[in-house]
């Protein structure tokens, strides 16, 4: 019993109404799905939250047809300034209903309410605000005088940031005059369905955004559908490669935002206390279920021991448990399948000879949990240094010189993000130039801003989301007419 026990500070689940079952959102209406319904559970309690419809090929066909009709008749011809009004309205409604969305996200995903409240929902609203501003300025974005939309965008998003990834996909698509058929992840469909309700509140014309739920086969049917002009996918590299094969030889354009195994590089002249916070935020944020997570810590050998010891001291203060408690730092793993994957890879790490340290925090008995874990004595050849674990597991490697840090950071098939910690400005610039990673953070980590482009090198995918760059995948360059 410590002196200062934080009493439970639970957020109220009653701020959001969850229906017992949900249909598909097609052409502005909720309709029945043709497939056998699936269940979505709260990963912190393993309780079923709702039955959710599953879209089959016929449902996908209806959704794409609705999107096509809306694109050709309403959304495409609409002046950009008018589209912007809808986007601003969506952004404002998201901000107004932020508590509802945050609670639902935490219930369905397992992430701490502190994160859904302070990061996911406000950043999602910011994304809509940002792209609303572009809608009437596309001729000045650098893509020709009259850039045009592709038409219908088929979008498939992951379960780690369900609402935020929805915003990253839908906001630029709508700003540029495309219409959307979006499939949320099978384990986290609820905030997308609540978003559909918000779209009706915003009086977005029917068919502009269609949300279909289901698992892999539904996503595959959407990607393969002949009526889809542009595919946008965020998820695993394995599925990304399948999608690239499926659409090869078709007219479809694609952006793929895939896995990562980011190097977080700490030099001996780093601001150590802030670097510790950056390491924590890099790999324990969202239980490490982040594609750009700083899962490989590269620390200069001269301070390696000090940094790992300080890190362990800090990790022992992390509060793991009920995601709805406002004081929880690390919540539940999203699914039993993901927990299984994390467990398998950490066992491989031990078997290959790395030294495991796990926080001795108490874990709840029901639900899917994994305590913050650090591996030291990791070599670049170990699986835990090469494969994406997607969990609260950090692999610590050391380096002696900047050249060695660069080599170790880049010697991996992924290239999504990297972090650099040093008080020396010139070193930051030189290192950033040498990183083969789409996002490089200096003296910070896992910061997301709608004005900044995000995307990968190598097998972390192609295309950029966010910023002016995020418009490009949704536009066909125009010429003066």
């Amino acid at each position, binding site marked *: 019993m410590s002196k200062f026990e934080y009493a439970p500070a639970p957020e109220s689940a009653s701020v959001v109404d969850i229906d017992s079952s949900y249909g598909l959102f097609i052409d502005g209406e909720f309709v029945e799905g043709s497939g056998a319904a699936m269940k979505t559970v709260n990963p912190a309690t393993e309780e079923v939250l709702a039955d959710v419809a599953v879209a089959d090929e016929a449902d996908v066909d209806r959704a794409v047809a609705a999107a096509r009709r809306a694109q050709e008749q309403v959304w495409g011809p609409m002046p950009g300034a008018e589209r912007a009004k809808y986007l601003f309205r969506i952004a404002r409604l998201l901000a107004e209903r932020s508590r509802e969305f945050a609670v639902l996200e935490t219930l369905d995903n397992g992430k701490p309410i502190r994160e859904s409240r302070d990061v996911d929902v406000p950043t999602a609203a910011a994304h809509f605000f940002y792209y609303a501003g572009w809608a009437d300025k596309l001729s000045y974005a650098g893509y020709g005088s009259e850039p045009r939309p592709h038409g219908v965008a088929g979008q498939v998003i992951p379960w780690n940031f369900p609402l935020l990834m929805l915003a990253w996909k839908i906001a630029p698509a709508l700003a540029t005059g495309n219409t959307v058929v979006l499939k949320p992840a099978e384990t986290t469909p609820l905030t997308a369905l609540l978003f559909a309700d918000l779209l009706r509140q915003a009086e977005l014309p029917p068919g502009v955004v269609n949300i279909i739920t289901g698992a892999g086969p539904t996503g595959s049917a959407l990607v393969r559908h002949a009526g889809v002009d542009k595919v946008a996918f965020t998820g695993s590299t394995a599925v990304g490669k399948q999608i690239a094969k499926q659409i090869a030889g078709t007219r479809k354009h694609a952006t793929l935002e895939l896995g990562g195994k980011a190097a977080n590089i700490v030099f001996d002249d780093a601001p150590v206390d802030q670097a510790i*916070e950056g390491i924590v935020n890099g790999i324990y944020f969202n239980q490490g279920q982040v594609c750009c997570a700083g899962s490989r810590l590269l620390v200069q050998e001269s301070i390696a021991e000090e940094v790992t010891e300080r890190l362990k001291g800090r990790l022992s203060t992390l509060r793991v448990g009920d995601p709805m408690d406002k004081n929880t730092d690390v919540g539940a793993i999203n699914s039993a399948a993901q927990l299984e994957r994390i467990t398998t890879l950490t066992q491989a790490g031990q078997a290959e000879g790395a030294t495991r340290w796990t926080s001795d925090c108490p874990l709840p008995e029901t639900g899917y949990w994994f305590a913050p874990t650090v591996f030291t004595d990791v070599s670049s050849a170990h699986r835990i240094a090469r494969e994406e674990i997607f969990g609260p597991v950090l692999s610590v490697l050391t380096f002696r010189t900047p050249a060695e840090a660069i080599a170790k950071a880049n010697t991996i098939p992924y290239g999504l993000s990297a972090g650099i910690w040093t008080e020396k400005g010139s070193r930051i610039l030189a290192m950033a130039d040498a990183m083969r990673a789409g996002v490089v953070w200096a003296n910070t980590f896992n910061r997301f801003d709608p004005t900044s482009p995000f995307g990968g090198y190598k097998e972390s995918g192609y295309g950029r989301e966010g910023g002016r760059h995020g418009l490009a995948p949704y536009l066909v360059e125009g010429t003066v007419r």
Partner: protein
Amino acid sequence: MATTTTAPAPSSTGGTHPATRSAQQVSADASGVVGSDQLSNAALRTFLHGLPGVDAVGLAGRAAQLGSRSIKTTAKAWGLDTVISMIDLTTLEGADTPGKVRSLVAKALTPQPGDASCPRPAAVCVYGDRVQIAKEALGGAPIAVAAVATGFPAGRAGTAARLADTQDAVDAGADEIDMVIDRGAFLAGDYRKVYDDIVAVREVCQSRAEPAHLKVILETGELATNDNVRRASWLAMLAGADFIKTSTGKVSPAATLPVTVLMLEAVRDFLAATGVQVGVKPAGGIRSAKDALKYLVAVNEVAGEAWLDPEFFRFGASSLLNDVLLQRLKLTSGVYSGTDYVTID
């Protein structure tokens, strides 16, 4: 970086009280940490400038995150009482009359009339020439009298005058001395001067049979950069401070949560390096119970629960007490009462 004997981590066990060390022990500890017997300006500079830098954005982010903890019900009740027990109830005005000081002491003795369960503040904090009045008014009650000294608040006086000011307060019976460092010397890089100054004031504090505890005010608002705050914190601890204190309250900005987090990191690291546990006192600008609870969270999670004790953490404040009392009333009665229900000191 300092040679650390153990990993710096939030501590529940704490360490040696700095006031129990002899002058020789303080000097030996300093030499050990700095790695030089001379403690010359060059040696001090090499050590202090070798401490890790501070990233201001990251520090502010950490403080904001600590500030977002939700302290409710039983935790809030414990926190409010703990805050009261850590307050140095302060009046530092040129207009401080004997009557004003007696009134302050009366408030400290009975913070909440009619509620005996309400804890008392740790100390009353006054100018040196008001110490005797405060001592008399306390009449032996277990509340310390802290005196500001050394030419407070600017400290721009000769060494002899600064020491005489301290001696006066010690002779008058002050239990604690709140000194100011020579910010001019610090900013000019004359670290040895600052060190010698603190050592000399400590000697005066220790000259009495029952030594006065020494709080060293860094005046972080004038040091301006976080790197300077970290260096000044270490310099004061090396010279034998019992407490490092943010501000006089006469300069803006006074205490902030980020600067307090930074100083809590310094005492945590100093404990790991030397086994000596130095206290922290944010002062000035903390007016609401809500803010004070954020500081308690920072103490708990950055330095560790060993610091959750009036012996090692204080709030320098005048109006904070009444807001904490109002929040305390709200917890017991369930309704908010107005300022008419707390007394003006």
